[in-house]
């Protein structure tokens, strides 16, 4: 079943899906590598992080952990808070990754903001091996991140080209996925709840700690919606 021909077809299908992430990851990965280099932490730690931590915003925050040589428990606590949004990705993908077999552990490990946003709206055509396509998308994204880090850490401050604002590619990617999701569905309540709760929590709690309260708010409103729907179904 899983012959060479089929794998090449899967790769041909998966690669174009990862191009926006490639742009964002090469730039953000390189920026991260440069920052690590400039702060004197070197290629070794930069690569270890990009391979095994593989969480963009956490790695940027991590530079401040190293700079201040913080207590590891403090690092753990702050990292869990910042990464809490990953719990949502897992909850969203529990069914989608159910039959992923040998790919499952890696697919879960590599579920970054960007890979999640591509996979969650991905409809693989029936003639392609679905989980292999997922795996290729996830692994390509990971490779871009590592490659960007390596280039940045090696080139250091030699890069002359003004890259200010290039990281906006990821904001653009999320905006585009948001629009695609909006078009694919007539029920816009979940999208509105997401934006509204997040904006409200930024205003109420500030930009540094809004994620966890926003997640609580989103899941509460969605759960109330679920109860209401269940009540309706039971009455019928």
């Amino acid at each position, binding site marked *: 079943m899983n012959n060479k021909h089929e794998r090449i077809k899967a790769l041909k299908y998966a690669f174009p899906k990862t191009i*926006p992430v490639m742009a964002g990851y090469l730039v953000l990965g390189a920026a991260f590598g440069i920052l690590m280099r400039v702060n004197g932490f070197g290629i070794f*730690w930069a690569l270890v*992080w990009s391979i*095994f*931590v593989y*969480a963009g915003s*956490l790695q940027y925050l*991590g530079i401040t952990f*190293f700079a201040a*040589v*913080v207590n*590891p428990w403090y*690092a*753990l606590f702050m*990292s*869990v808070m910042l*990464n*809490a*949004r*990953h*719990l*949502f*990705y*897992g*909850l*969203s*993908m*529990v*069914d989608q990754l159910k*039959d992923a077999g040998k790919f*499952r552990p890696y697919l*879960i490990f590599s*579920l970054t903001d960007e890979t999640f946003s591509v996979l969650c709206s991905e409809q693989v055509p029936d003639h392609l091996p679905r989980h292999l396509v997922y795996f290729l998308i996830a692994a390509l994204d990971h490779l871009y991140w590592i490659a960007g880090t390596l280039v940045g850490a090696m080139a250091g401050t030699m890069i002359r080209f*003004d890259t200010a*604002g290039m990281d*906006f*590619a*990821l*904001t*653009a990617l*999320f*905006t*585009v996925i*948001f*629009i*695609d*999701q909006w078009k694919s569905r007539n029920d*816009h309540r*979940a*999208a*509105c*709840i*997401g*934006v509204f709760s*997040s*904006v409200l929590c930024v205003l109420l709690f500030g*930009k540094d700690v809004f994620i966890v309260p926003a997640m609580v708010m*989103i899941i509460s409103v*969605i*759960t109330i919606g679920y109860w209401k729907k269940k009540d309706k179904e039971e009455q019928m």
Partner: protein
Amino acid sequence: MKHNFNSYALITLAMILATVLTRFLPFLFFPAGKKTPKYITYLGNTLPYATIGLLVVYCLRGVSFTARPYGLPEALSIAVIAVLHIWKGNALLSIGGGTILYMTLIQTLFR
């Protein structure tokens, strides 16, 4: 240096642990072999739509609307992305166009 290496290694371990924990936890609670509860399936169908909204806001969280340039570069670029994307429907064009516009804006007009 030796002292620093150990501290760095522990901090790195903490970061890896935090990431693995937050990514694997939902899957440990709802393993592959068992039937997923209805409620979790419902979450799987609705949460992605809310989460992408959260991510857009997350990216823009540092933008100030009360001080110059009043979030104008971001607002303009997102407006252009939206128009391009609804009009042409080509993700790469929308993302590339919007990013180049944003870079130009903050490197020239809104320096």
